[in-house]
C-alpha cells in the first residue's frame, strides 16, 4: 500500500480484508460440512412415502406429519391422548407447551415413535404360486 495513504483509510481497508477472510473461513468450513452431509443423502424416490422419522420437527403439525408419513391423524391424536378438535393447526411444540408443559420434547418423541410403528408397509412383489 502506498506510504502516503491516509492511515484511517489504510486501517479501514486492512480491517475489511481481515473481515472478508474471517467470513470466508467461517462459511467455507460450514459449506464443506453441509456439502458432505448433502452428498451422503439422496432424496426419496418420487411418489414414495417418507419413512425417516428423524426428519420430524417440532414446528410441524399433526396434519402435516400424517400427510407426509401416511399415518392416519386419528392414530397420532390417540397416542397423544388429546382431542383432534382445535389441535389440527397447532405445532408439536405448541401442543407440548399446552398439554405437557413439564415434559420438554415429549410430544416430538412420542410422535416419532408412533409414526415409526405405524408406517405403511412397503408394497411386496407378487407371491409365488404355491407348489403343487
Amino acid at each position, binding site marked *: 500500500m502506498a506510504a502516503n495513504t491516509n492511515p484511517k483509510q489504510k486501517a479501514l481497508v486492512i480491517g475489511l*480484508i481481515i473481515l472478508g477472510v474471517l467470513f470466508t473461513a467461517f462459511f467455507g468450513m460450514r459449506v464443506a460440512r453441509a456439502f458432505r452431509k448433502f452428498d451422503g443423502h439422496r432424496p426419496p424416490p418420487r411418489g414414495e412415502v417418507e419413512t425417516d422419522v428423524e426428519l420430524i420437527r417440532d414446528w410441524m403439525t399433526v396434519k402435516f406429519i400424517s400427510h407426509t408419513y401416511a399415518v392416519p391423524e386419528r392414530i397420532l391424536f390417540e397416542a397423544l391422548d388429546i382431542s383432534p378438535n382445535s389441535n389440527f393447526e397447532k405445532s408439536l411444540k405448541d401442543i407440548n407447551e399446552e398439554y405437557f408443559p413439564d415434559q420438554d420434547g415429549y410430544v416430538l418423541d412420542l410422535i416419532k415413535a408412533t409414526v415409526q410403528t405405524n408406517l405403511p408397509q412397503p408394497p411386496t412383489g407378487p407371491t409365488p404360486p404355491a407348489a403343487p
Partner: protein
Amino acid sequence: MSEFFLTQVINFGTPLVGLILFLGALGFPVGASVVVIAAGAFSQQGILPWATTAVIGLVGALAGDTLSFSIGHYAKDWAQKRFENSTLWLNAKNSFQQHAGLTIFLTRWLITAVAIPTNLIAGGSGYKFSHFMAYDIAGESVWILLYGGLGYMFGSQWELVNDFLSNFGGLVLGLVIIGFGIRQVIIMQKAGKKEAYKNAEA
C-alpha cells in the same frame, strides 16, 4: 422465527408465502430463503400448488423490493443534505451506478444479506425504477426457481439444501469483501505512484 412461519405456511398455504416474501424484502427477519426452499418441498409433497406458490411468492418479493426502493427514493433529499460533503457516500453512489444491474441481480439470490441496502441505495441514488425492476424480476425469479426447485427436488430432506445454501451465501459475501478490499489496495497504490511521480517531476 422462521419455524413459526413454516407452521403457518402449512396451515394457511400460498398467500402466506407471498406475505412472508413481502416482509422479507422489507428487511423483517422472517427467514424468506428458508420459506422458499420449504415451499418447494411442500409443493413436492402435495401441500402447496407449485405454480401458484411461485407466482404469488414472486409478486410478494417484488412488492417488498418496490417499497424498499421507494423508501430510498423518498429519503434521497434527506440523504443528499446529510451526506453531501461525504466522499464515501459519493464514491458508494458512483460505484453503485457503475455496477447497478449486476449488483441488483446478484443480491436477489446469491448475496441476499445485502439486498435491502442495495434497494435503499438504488432508490436513494436516483437509479431508474424501470431498470431496477427489470434486474429485480430476473434476480427474484432465479431465487424462487433455484431455491424452490432444489426444495422440490429434495422434498422432505429440504433442510440439507437450506444448510448448504445459507452458508454458501456467506462464503460468497466473504469473497466479495476480500475482492473489494484488494481492489481498494490497488487503487490506493496507483494513486500513491501517481503522486510520487508528480512530486519527482516537480
